């Protein structure tokens, strides 16, 4: 069963890709607004979400996962799903 701990583990991984910590990231941080979050980092974030949570990478998810807030929500839904 996936649970809160699983969600926390994935979010930690995302934060590490941004050379940051989960607590330091706000929901508004995202592609182009967070200093380390450029398109290359975004590629890695999407690939991680694909590996960990089965995200389908397409035009919609590339923009849909554009902020830490939307990623947090996606990961939490996945963990509780």
């Amino acid at each position: 069963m996936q649970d809160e701990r699983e969600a926390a583990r994935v979010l930690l991984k995302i934060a590490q890709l941004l050379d940051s910590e989960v607590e330091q990231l706000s929901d508004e941080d995202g592609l182009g607004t967070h200093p380390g979050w450029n398109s290359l980092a975004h590629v890695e974030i999407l690939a991680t979400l694909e590996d960990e949570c089965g995200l389908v990478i397409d035009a919609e998810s590339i923009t849909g996962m554009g902020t830490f807030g939307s990623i947090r929500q996606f990961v939490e839904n996945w963990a509780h799903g």
Partner: protein
Amino acid sequence: MTPSPSSVDPRHPLARLLNAAEAHPHSLALHNDELSVTYEDFAGRIMRLATVFRRHAAMGRVLLSLEKGLDAYAAPFAAMAVRAVYCPLNPDLPLRRRLSVGEAFEPDVILTDRPEDWEAHPQSSRVLRPDEVDEVADLPEDLELELAIDDRPAYVIFTSGSSGDPKGVVIPLTGLCHYLDWAVPALGAGPGSRCSQHPNLGFDLSVLDVFASLCSGATLIPLSSAMDRMFPGRAIERHAIDTWVSVPSVVDVIARAGDLKPERLRSLRLMVFCGEPLRRPHCRAIFDNTEHCRILNTYGPTEATVSCTVVEVTRENLDDISGESVAIGDPIGDMSLGLDEGDEGELVISGPQVALGYWRDTEATARVFDPANRSYRTGDWVRRKGRNLFVTGRIDRQVKVRGHRLELGEVETRAREVSGGRAVAAFVRDESIVLVVEGVVADAAEFRSALSDVLPDYMLPADVVGIAAIPRTPNDKIDYRSLEAAYAR
């Protein structure tokens, strides 16, 4: 619209294209999720655009600031049809920069998807949207095409100048044709092959994939969607691309997306790299994940028409031709290379691909071009080892830190090795070296100590910092200006 044979040189880019269109009218010239254009229709569009250019810019200047659609590829040929010089300008550049290029180039016609951006531009230029072309153009009547090859300018590409003002590099038609004499057979594409179009059209590397593909009857696959650009490995699989052209760092992007695997790269037959140093791990990764893919490494500044050297990298010769990076290879065709100081020095390039100079800038031209010898001083520092040449850095990246002359490129090379192949960038801040490493740097002191085993003390960075992703320019090269600004005290 058939050119009279007497005035046609078959090496002219448009003659090559028209030959391909005549031989394979129903083959696809352009193809991606949004575009599907046959050679017949592509040639028709060229003639339509040529009619408009003839009326408004014959022997004149055409500025092209277009998304990767039909006209972005057809318009350069159309400009050549009426002996106009064209300037491709990346539409994603900041507006101010685009306007400053427009001001410098003084085009007769601007073809753009975003005419509203050009409202501030002097009215002497006619601004056209692709969909307005049909209203302006008469039906393509018999257009007398004179496809002779001479030394008049074919295109002008603006690169960033050290002063901050864009510098226009003027490439003659003879130079472009000399380049295509190498490029078309080197890519070996033809009807049935599918060639990537990755670089933005304001970056001269795009001359390679666009012309070598369209002049040979192959299908050009413009990679323009966010999906294709961010996940190039999946684009290769999805579009069954067999011929790939890009800067080497795209291999890092493929790796970071987790796509360096045979099922993604199966269709590849050839990868051609240019624009920055190709490294041994890039080649290994490709060889390990493809069965029949050849690799060509090429080198050249915009001032010598895209690239002027080549070496084929094989599994067998990889170690022999690799130093800090893969050797740049041998000059192509009638080009030649010279070092001004024996086995190490600034590389000087001469031959027919050398640009005519910088657009309307005789002073800057005189500093680096020697018209008498048709040569250009590259500013690239090159070392000869055996029969291989290696670019070790830029002359302008040689710095003096506390009295020691050093090469920032060398600091980066050692740092890359110590980091296990990660992307790194070094620059000078307040008389000391800052090293930025992509990814997490868990222990900066330890990293520095590992570097001290391979670098003298005066070359050790005072600061080692991790960054999620090193900023890059629109041409995918390390953006040192942004880095320096980001880490300025």
